[in-house]
């Protein structure tokens, strides 16, 4: 059985789905992840809560149990951009204070991690390098 892909050696898609990137954000230190979705992703995550922002009114109507913020109100003229912005901000604070997001309450804990390789980056390009060189 030939199970090795032909051609140059690769690991495949860098991130096979959204949760692979979410895990990387959390590994970078994210306490909360704000996730915008139009079609209606239901995922949550282990370790840090995900706040789902849906700007598609039809999707929100179908999946309001899974969506935290109805940003489609802007398109429909039921709210202004600033109002929804404030709502997202207030929700981030509430979640940081312990309120469960929709995906947390539903028990979503999706997690994906696979192989990658990276060459070391920096430190010369980091902003801290400029500060210390002064």
């Amino acid at each position: 059985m030939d199970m090795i892909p032909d051609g140059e050696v690769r690991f495949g898609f860098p991130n096979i789905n959204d949760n692979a990137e979410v895990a990387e954000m959390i590994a970078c230190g994210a306490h909360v992840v704000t996730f915008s979705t139009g079609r209606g992703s239901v995922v949550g995550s282990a370790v840090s809560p995900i706040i789902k922002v849906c700007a598609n009114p039809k999707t929100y109507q179908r999946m309001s149990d899974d969506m935290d913020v109805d940003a489609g109100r802007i398109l429909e003229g039921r709210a202004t951009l600033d109002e929804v912005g404030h709502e997202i901000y207030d929700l981030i604070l509430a979640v940081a204070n312990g309120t469960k997001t929709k995906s947390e309450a539903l028990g979503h804990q999706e997690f994906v991690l696979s192989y990658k390789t990276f060459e070391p980056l920096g430190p010369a390009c980091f902003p801290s390098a400029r500060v210390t060189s002064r």
Partner: protein
Amino acid sequence: MTINGYLRNDGRKGIRNNIVVTYLVECAHHVAREIVHPFREQGVNLIGFSGCYPNAYSHKMMERLCTHPNVGRRAAGFARVRRVQQGRPAGDRAQVRPAGATGGDQDTGGTRKSIAEGQAVDRADSGTAPEHAPRADGAQRAHRRYQVRRLGRHLRIDREPGDGARIRFPGRTERELHLRGNRRADRHGELDGGRAATPELGQEIINTVAKAARYYATLGHASFAPAMPTAAHDASKRNRSAPMRRAGNRASAASSSRAMCQLPADSI
């Protein structure tokens, strides 16, 4: 503005006090999942690596996740194969107290015994309900109030077309300033080398965009949308080889309709 959080020994603050059960190879996934199942509504999370051989990236990811400030304890790590255990997240930094067994089902006598042992650990912890858990270092509860700006925040922007997912917080208000220092965006298309803190970092960002465009194009996948701002795009074009330019152009053409999903860094 303050919130309630959990203080870790190294001074970082978490907003959750989760326990993570980890598996470090796919064949230990079932054991770990079964251990978590009875406790899944008590803040016990399952994370793991499905590979079968040590990998520096996955090792670093697991180490960082196990020591994330939202994690109070790493309850158990399960690796089935000894050689993979060598690559496990061994760096239990000060704030994460490994509450119990870290082992493999080959050591403990197979699936059934491993599940029983792992659940016993979770049960022992389970006064463990996260809201009442002791501080990660075993001292008193660390539910305290912290400045909002201490918290990191990431924005995840969906790649789906047509969602109109431009998010903007209110103008230059106190709210904006609280969050400004800690944002990160994951989409390469949101990255603009021209606004980087240093020219060197700007070039690294441009290189990253070019690398992603080439990588996805090589794989025949058109979901990557560079949508680079003009200055950065021009610089990137100058710096890319001909094959990379072709790859980037294909990716750009395939996804030009997704510009609405962009999140300009200065709009937050």
